């Protein structure tokens, strides 16, 4: 068994990242989880938050994702994210504008589906603002 795991980050538009990493920590729907080689196969939701890629017990890359799914197998961890931004490139003003917009959308939402979508967007924006502070 190799001592790295293939981490793939995919957005609807393209494959953003595909590289061998030692460990990756993903914000799962039920709490953060770390993926090391030989992880048991798992399907899970991903909440908005930061994915950390570790090398030699240090974070070498942090990426903010706006929710999605993760598929983990023994030698692979694939995260399907609707949006992904490197944490260094996050822009606080942008995030706050988005938060404002999401709040407005939630207040304006009438149907259940629209409300759900707005709530999801709100959570994403909140996480984005929080990620800026981190």
């Amino acid at each position, binding site marked *: 068994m190799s001592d790295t795991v293939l981490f*793939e980050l*995919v*957005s*609807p*538009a*393209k*494959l953003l990242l595909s590289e061998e990493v030692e460990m990756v920590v993903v914000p*799962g*729907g*039920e709490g953060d989880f770390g993926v090391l080689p030989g992880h*048991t*196969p*798992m*399907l*899970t*939701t991903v909440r908005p938050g930061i994915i950390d890629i570790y090398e030699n017990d240090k974070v070498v890359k942090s990426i903010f994702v706006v929710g*999605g*799914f993760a*598929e983990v*197998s023994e030698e692979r961890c*694939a995260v*399907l994210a*609707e949006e992904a931004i490197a944490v260094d490139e996050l822009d606080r003003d942008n995030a706050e504008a988005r938060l404002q917009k999401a709040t407005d959308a939630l207040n304006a939402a009438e*149907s*259940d*589906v*629209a409300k759900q*979508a707005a709530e999801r967007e709100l959570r994403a924006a909140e996480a984005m603002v929080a990620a800026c502070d981190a």
Partner: protein
Amino acid sequence: MPNLKDLKIRIDSVKSTQKITSAMKMVAAAKLRKAQLSAESARPYAERMETMVAALAKSFDGVDGAPELLAGNGKDEKHLIVLVSSDRGLCGGFNANIGRFARNKITELRAAGKSVKVLCLGRKGRDQVRRDFGDAILDTVEDLTKNGAQYNDANNLALRIRTMYEEGEFDVCTVIYNKFISAITQEVTPLQVIPFAVAQIEDTAKEAQDDELKALYEYEPSEEEILEDLLPRNLSVQIFRAMLESFASEQGARMAAMDNATRNAGDMINNLTLTYNRARQAAITNELIEIISGAEAL
């Protein structure tokens, strides 16, 4: 005998038409490359999503309580057709084919006593359907592919379709789009998105399935919850993919059509030039005869 000046004007006008068509061909070729690239780079996401849906759907096989987006609401009365076409013409049979297919489908469904509504993406598709089934058209979304297909647009559309579904405006939703086969061939393809037909994707996902479905997944949270989250996104992805394919097809069709037009214009210029030269020669001969016979008469 056509007038020399008229012929000259005619030739010039065909020449400038040829310039336009060959420029359009080159623009379409460049856009096609870009469209193909974005269609290809969107594939990994869609494929993984399909594998996940297939894996989850399997665990609901024949079990009650599957989410409605997957299993349907048990009715088959009201149909929604999402017609993906282009905003611009001059792309050969691209819009005509999809329009014809849609009209046949509507006629068929209506004959079976179902009600049909159409949501048009792209102006040209609406024009195709409007004459016969103007009452069925709900709305037309334009300018979707101005800068290539955007996931955000697909997402908004999916949201709108889901809202309509929740409100019971339709039972079955089918997306009709031109599937990209190669630069010169497109295939009109119906894709049922609500309820999502897993059988359709089984072929593509089969290999992956064999390998991965055997490995039992752990689900976190439960299967139902993941599926609830996954299916709406899957809808967006399917629509996004239809948009990408359709955009690539459109450029391919336009490239082929403009290539033909350029070639036809070339043929026409050759013919006209031949006629022009002949007419010129005839005029010269005529003048010569006049001069010679005038000289002889002296």
